[in-house]
């Protein structure tokens, strides 16, 4: 009885750790996605259609060579070559599975040990928040970050 309860508790703890690990990885992926973003704010003039605002270009195109066919619109090319980056990578994996290719060219992990910095000030970190893994240089920095929520204060010096 007792041992079953014990192992149940252990399992819970393990599960929690795994969940934490998954949550951390998710957070990391989100952080990296944010670094790829073109804009943080919304388009201030989303109603402004660019192809309508550029009549001059059409003019220059048509004057080229005289016999020129009517230039195709930007919209045509948008529809014609509509593929997301993810689709392109997937397609490449099927079409061109043997290295060297886009995937295989990715630089492998470094052999240099990872370094850790304070999430607040960027200096070397001496403390780590156990629940979430964030690093801080001092308890002061931690307080400035207002992190983690008070009830789960569990920091360790590393």
């Amino acid at each position: 009885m007792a041992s079953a309860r014990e192992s149940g508790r252990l399992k819970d703890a393990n599960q929690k750790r795994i969940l934490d690990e998954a949550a951390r990885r998710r957070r990391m992926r989100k952080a990296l996605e944010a670094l790829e973003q073109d804009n943080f704010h919304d388009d201030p003039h989303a109603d402004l259609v660019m192809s309508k605002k550029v009549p001059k270009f059409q003019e220059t195109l048509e004057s080229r060579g005289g016999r020129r066919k009517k230039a195709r619109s930007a919209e045509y090319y948008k529809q014609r070559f509509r593929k997301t980056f993810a689709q392109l990578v997937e397609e490449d994996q099927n079409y061109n599975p043997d290295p060297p290719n886009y995937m295989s060219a990715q630089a492998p992990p470094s052999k240099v040990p990872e370094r850790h910095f304070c999430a607040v000030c960027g200096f070397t970190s001496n403390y780590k928040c156990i629940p979430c893994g964030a690093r801080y240089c001092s308890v002061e920095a931690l307080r400035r970050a207002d992190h983690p929520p008070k009830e789960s204060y569990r920091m360790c010096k590393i």
Partner: protein
Amino acid sequence: MAISREVFVLDNGAYTAKVGISNSEHPRVIPNCIMKAKSERRRPFVGDQLEDCRDASGLFYILPFQKGYLVNWDVQKNVWDYIFSKECCPANFSETPLVVTEPYFNFPSIQEAMTEIFFEEYECKSLLRINAGDLSCYNYKKKNPGTLCCLLVDSGYSFTHVVPYIKGKKLKQGIRRIDVGGKMLTNHLKEIISYRQLHVMDETHVMNQVKEDACFVSQNFFRDMDIARKRDKENTIARDYVLPDFTTLRRGYVRSIDPVDKAGESEQQQILRLNNERFTVPEIMFHPSDLGISQMGIPEAICHSIGVCPVEAQPHLYANILLTGGCSLFPGFRERVEAEVRSRAPDDLDVQVTLPANPVTYAWHGGALLGQDSEFSNMTVSREEYEEEGHSLCFEKFDI
């Protein structure tokens, strides 16, 4: 053998297009994007039209490229139509051959789209699609006759590539891509400044200038960390950055920290205090793991790449490392790369790292030179050939 032939060279970067006829002294460098300004309801700004924009705060970017590859064709077509127009850099493709660049391992359907748009839409007479790095390597070979190899490092907007060239030919198995480029550095700077002192998340344009004006590559990271921890005069790293307000100041600038606050002056100005940000941001190119990216930094990737090349080529590669791309303009970049590669390379080998006078336009100049090569016409595909043989000929001839 050199031939006098004009070609139109378009080094089509994700950040800027470097464009012009080969006989011009320099290419024009045109932002490869469309921008919208908060202050300007009436029009978007295409490419360098941004110069007409009075207030460039809160600029909204619309980019043709994603992760270094061309995916938004409507945006790209609008920018190209502007670039090739009389207003910018007029092109006569029915007479002048076009050299256009593409990223390494460009996806086949993007390659087909490139071929199609240039032959069918812009009605090119003849076309050469090529990696920008091939052009840089060609330029290097012309400037340094007798060199057999070149290890190219291209740090642009989207990523950094490390590519070994042996006798003018790239060794594809040796290509290494680090997913860190200028875009990521600017976005990271935006984030840490917004967290530490002032909300600048919407100010990509301004913060990109802050990055270019104030950041540098450290030669001794932990020593500089110690200096940045010091106070007052002992901290030789901290600087102020005067932000533009777009009424009295159009572009920001770096300023040393003035202990006596000149009354009045700083009331008008908005200032960022930059300290460890100045070098922890470019440091990501050397330690992508600082941001949680599990990839090698540049010097480690250089040695890794050279390691897969034939042994007899390795000494030549270490002795001919060439840096290109906008991110190689950070002060200290060349010295740091050279010092770290030196410390990793076999002792008996010579390590030499070259930073050209203009690492951004170096590939363009290579393209202009290649147009004069007697081999050039064998490298291109003509419209007649395309009409007869279609995409398969292009895949055969263009080694992307």
